[in-house]
């Protein structure tokens, strides 16, 4: 579509008046873009038509503008109700919310870290408690053992205490018992460690021989290693027999396993 045909066919006028199809309008617009003279001509056309309209203007009633501005301002208010609030929310979300989220995240991390530490500490504390309790009970045991040992040590370490070894005879050749006799204190202490374990219905029993009479010095307990026995005055020897559990009133001579002369 050349410039002359556009001008001659009155296409610019029709374009201005909005009478052309979209295709024709596009062609005219293209032609206008590339032709300064045609553009000037069109500008004059527009000015002329505009001038006509202004010369024939009719002032509309004020109510039209009032109504128009009401509608437009309401639209703007509606938009503000929706869009700006959204914007504010986005702003609220963008900076303070991000800060809050960051703080919450940091708080979460530190809480997790602290919780983990607390659990570890709690676990350590628990094992420490157990260890302490174990140590305490061991100390108690050791103290008790020490007291016991010390007691026996004190007893047997007396200058007046005489140590006598009771060796097993043919009946029980591996048996050994050590007794400490203190004639001053009138005490007899027995170390039972070397006595073999007996059947449940048997006990060792100790006897003192006083002028040919066997006097009961007591049943030897099977659950301790050191024990005191009854001191008998004027005893010539000490003897150990195997008796029914709980002891016997008279020694079973056949079951004499050891004796020692005082």
């Amino acid at each position: 579509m050349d410039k002359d045909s556009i001008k001659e066919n009155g296409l610019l006028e029709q374009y201005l008046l909005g009478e052309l199809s979209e295709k024709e309008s596009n062609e005219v617009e293209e032609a206008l873009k590339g032709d300064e003279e045609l553009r000037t001509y069109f500008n004059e056309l527009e000015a002329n038509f505009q001038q006509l309209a202004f010369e024939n203007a009719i002032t509309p009633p004020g109510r039209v503008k009032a109504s128009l501005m009401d509608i437009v301002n309401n639209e703007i208010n509606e938009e503000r109700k929706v869009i700006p609030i959204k914007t504010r929310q986005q702003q609220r979300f963008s900076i303070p919310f991000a800060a809050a989220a960051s703080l919450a995240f940091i708080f979460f991390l530190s809480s997790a870290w602290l919780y983990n530490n607390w659990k570890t500490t709690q676990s350590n504390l628990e094992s420490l408690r157990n260890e302490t309790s174990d140590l305490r009970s061991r100390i108690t045991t050791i103290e008790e053992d020490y007291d016991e040992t010390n007691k026996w040590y004190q007893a047997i370490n007396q200058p007046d205490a005489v140590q006598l070894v009771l060796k097993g005879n043919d009946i029980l050749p591996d048996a050994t018992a050590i007794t400490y006799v203190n004639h001053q204190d009138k005490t007899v202490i027995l170390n039972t460690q070397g006595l073999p374990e007996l059947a449940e219905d048997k006990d060792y029993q100790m006897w003192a021989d006083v002028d040919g009479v066997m006097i009961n010095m007591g049943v030897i307990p099977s659950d301790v290693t050191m024990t005191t026995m009854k001191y008998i005055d004027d005893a010539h020897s000490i003897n150990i027999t195997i008796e029914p559990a709980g002891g016997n009133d008279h020694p079973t001579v056949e079951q004499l396993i050891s004796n020692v002369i005082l």
Partner: protein
Amino acid sequence: MKDELELIRRMQKRDSQALSSLYDLYSGAIYGVIFRICKNESQAEDLLQETFLKIWNKSELYNPEKGKFFTWAYRIAKNITLNELRKNDKLIQNEDLSVYKDRSDDAEEKDFLALTGSLKKLEVHHQEAIELVYFEGLTHREAHQKMGVPLGTFKSYIRQALKKLKDTYPKEYFLWWIIIEMIR
């Protein structure tokens, strides 16, 4: 022109004050066109409002490189008015698919709708040609039939009319420029 472009830019950014200013500038000229096409005051008022609402809501579609803002607004007003009249079955579809108002020759025109200004200084057939296409919304094809002259002749009428208008404007243009500037 620069101020007008600034107003348009502001309107495109949803500044209702800019729309108000543009309304003050152009509503009279637009209303004159709408009123003359539809010949009904109450309807013309509604259509003027509708036209400016469309200008407001479609302002981003206006491209200053393609022409004057008034030309764009004029086309909107004309289309809205012709479509409204078509709804009322007062339009006849033409063979080129454009529409025009089926106006009766004996339609009584109100005095204040009579055209005035430079147009009245033109020869009668030139006046009529311009009036038909510009103030009554007829297409060239409809208008030449209405005037009973060939299309080519009708187009010449328009061209000659505009050329003569152009010659008369410089004398009056200054006055109009002052009036427009005062309105702004």
